[in-house]
């Protein structure tokens, strides 16, 4: 099947197998390998991207479902000169990542969370990130990073 998607602002048409997952389309067809696969049950959130601005787990979306739509991945977040997006900058400042494998998905989930709720409480951040696993940080500094990115002072 043909699929035309705009990924991080770049539109392209590709011929894909019907069953190709969006995450594999991004990684193997578009060569955008920031988005990771961490599980096979839509549990871990490592593959989280934005589809028309809404966060989705790209291991549970077919590439063809993204036809005519816009996909945003972590590759498109920082400015061309390397200036980090506020969420990325807060992750760095608050040490919200260790191995970094969950980070692209986690960062995109946080971008989406803050879009929906620009000044979340700690509780709302924890609930909002329930679908994104991190095995390194214990989430403590991720939660702080989201609060910092929202302009709040974490305790």
């Amino acid at each position, binding site marked *: 099947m043909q699929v035309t998607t705009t990924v991080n602002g770049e539109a392209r048409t590709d011929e894909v197998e019907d069953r190709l997952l969006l995450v594999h389309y991004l990684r193997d067809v578009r060569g955008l390998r920031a988005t990771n*696969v961490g599980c096979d*049950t839509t549990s871990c959130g490592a593959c989280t991207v934005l589809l028309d601005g809404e966060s989705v787990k790209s291991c549970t979306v077919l590439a063809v479902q993204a036809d005519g739509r816009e996909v945003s991945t972590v590759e498109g977040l920082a400015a061309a000169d390397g200036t980090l997006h506020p969420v990325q900058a807060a992750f*760095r400042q608050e*040490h919200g990542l260790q*191995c970094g*494998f969950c980070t692209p998905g986690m960062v995109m989930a946080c971008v989406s969370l803050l879009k929906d709720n620009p000044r979340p409480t700690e509780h709302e951040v*924890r609930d909002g990130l329930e679908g994104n696993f991190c*095995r*390194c940080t*214990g989430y403590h500094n991720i939660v702080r990073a989201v609060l910092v990115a929202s302009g709040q002072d974490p305790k």
Partner: protein
Amino acid sequence: MTEQMDAGFVAEQIAEHPEAVHKPYAGGELGRGRRRKEDAKLLTGQTNWTDNITLPGLLHMSVLRSPMAHARVLSVDVSPALEMPGVIAAYSGRDLADVQGSLPCAWPVTPEMVHPDHSPLAVDEVRYVGDGVAVVIARDRYAAADALEAIVVEYEQLPAVVDMEAALAEGAALVHSDKGTNACFTWPFAGGADYAETLAGHPDAVVVRRRFRQQRLLPSPMEPRSVVVAPIAAADDYTVYSSTQIPHILRVMLALVTGIGEHKIRVIAPDVGGGFGCKLNVYAEEVLALVVARKLGRPIKWTESRSEHYQATIHGRDQIQDIEIAATPEGTLLGLKVELLADMGAYLQLVTPGVPILGAFMFPAIYKMDAYSFTCTGVFTTKTPTDAYRGAGRPEATYAIERIMDELAAELGRDPMDLRKQNWIKHEEFPFEMVAGLTYDSGNYEAATELAEQMFDMTALRAEQAERRARQDPVQLGIGISTFTEMCGLAPSRVLGSLSYGAGGWEAAQIRMLPTGKVEVTSGATPHGQGHHTAWSQIVADALGVPFEDVEVITGDTDSSPKGMDTYGSRSLVVGGVAIHKATGKVIEKAKRVAAHLLEAAEGDVEFAGGTFTVKGSPEASLTIQQVALATFAAHNLPEGMEPTLDSDYVYDPENFSYPHGTHLCAVMIDTETGFTKIRKYVCVDDVGKIVNPVIVQGQIHGGLAQGIAQALYEEAVHDAEGNLITGSMVDYLIPSAADLPHFHTGRTETASTSNPLGVKGVGEAGTIASTPAVINAVVDALRPWGVDNIDMPATPERVWRAIHDDGTLRVPSGTVSYGGAQTAATSGGAA
């Protein structure tokens, strides 16, 4: 020599851009909360995970796995798979029998240890669900996965061996029928006085026994394992990319297993997304990808799915612990007796039998006692092999001692912290030789505990607990303590030798000063998320007096950092970091000779501080270390006989382990109507010696806490009676999310280690080791009015609810509630 290589050219450039070279060292690098150098690429997704690697002509490997825990393999027909689109090759275990070798176990803990063959693909018999039986090689990963379904395997089912005690019973079905037993080894150990005699000499001794279960855990780093092998067939030469913690060890082992020359194998651990011990191994797929790449002369990639990870990557823990502690009626410890059964799984992986042995030294923990008796039997079962998982033996030991100290306190009607204080090593008693033979170099348990109690507000929480108990509130409060220590920084090579481990415990470092004054550091310690590049830069910057930004760290490639023992056992800083520190010393030593020569001063008169060499008494005569580096590169004017360039190489073998410690306090709220446990407050004060980077240290503690709490409350690998893993995906195996974990209140005290020049101790496993008993002690403390004196992990709502209900009705609390615990008739009895 090209113009660019000419020192004169470099010198001119430097003269034009002095700021590029002579940035002064601002000082204060050690102990500074530097943000990590690693983060820029990780945050922007410019990461080189093994699965991100693509190569021309790359083929994908998939593995057909046994659906049965134990079966004879009657036949494997891969030919239908070869008819599938995109398939290049398919092999059964029999097809590869001559080339696949046997996976290594480097830790034969006793000379008599039963050590079965472990072929990467099973040939005649499969012994756990997930044991590989065939591989398919195809043009893409979808085709490789599809073709597995075409392979026809005939099995004859054999009895599963799931329960360790049943496995050791007379007439039990055997995992390895040719071995005649399911017992892998028995390892006895004792320290101090004889345990039985000690008890006989104290007829009034209070003796408490418990049986604790260390449930099986699934390590679950976020990055699944992956391997890519790129062959140069004509040269029989291979580059192996693997998501591994141990590129150096893997290289040696791949050579030994396959017979390929070690010098013909280059192993690269690119960016590695967490390991927690499970990537400290030599896996079937690494060998299979290598032998298939060799057969086909094509690059091969294999990446596990999460379900495969749960079947085919090692599991952690899995012990039955029978613990007995004896004390005088006044609470002074007399002795400890530990009897373990440790589940090996179906085969021995790299250090499988050694994991419980590492724990043997830690059961006495921080407590003084006269007698210690330990024995461990390793048991084969038809389950995935176990091996090192964060803490590897020490969490199990710490759990047992910290749990039984609470039980002893309850038996004696004592406050559990007071009982600990009565028995722990006082800070003025260090160094202290423990009953298990280790010499703890330093510690201050009093200081850590005092700070933790202050942060926790123990008095207020105890008061609230008493109120809730008095009014029989449906939500009860429990308080748990863990005053832990651990041994880390594996390890003095002579100690490993005495424990029959197959290698040393040293670590290597190289430092190269570049002509422009920048510094390249290579380290054999291989990171997988910790922040080595940042911490090593701080150590080097501080020692050489160069800016942090001027240091580049290179790791994870046996070509560029050829010597190493890799990363595990909280060893990187205390062994690898010290190696780097020592290597800087050699650089300074050589640079000082050059500086003395150039400044025409006696070497003894040259002093080095903050990156500058000066001559005593002539402050105007000075050279920066960058200027000296350039001079050694130009080599126009060096002391007679000196080799050009400024670099060094150091291999450090530690003299002792390091012994971090700390006090962890946990308050839980338990809803007695649902059995649900919620952590209300978690406070920990860790003492990990001198700190290089407090931000990284705190992050390590946080992550460790999450994994330790997860063992206490959430995670368990469950097998059914047929040996099927019924928690085989992330849907069924409960990895805690942000919503499940609390805010962590962390504090620290700093008691420098006296066994290394940086004064540092390990930190990677501390949080995991300490936190599990703190949480379970809190749960049991909350339930003690109901006579509960133990609860199996994880303390799920169901387990908690069942512990306090009879026939669906909440029992009436009984037992006299004393401060911190209750005395009940059952406290000296067996398991709950």
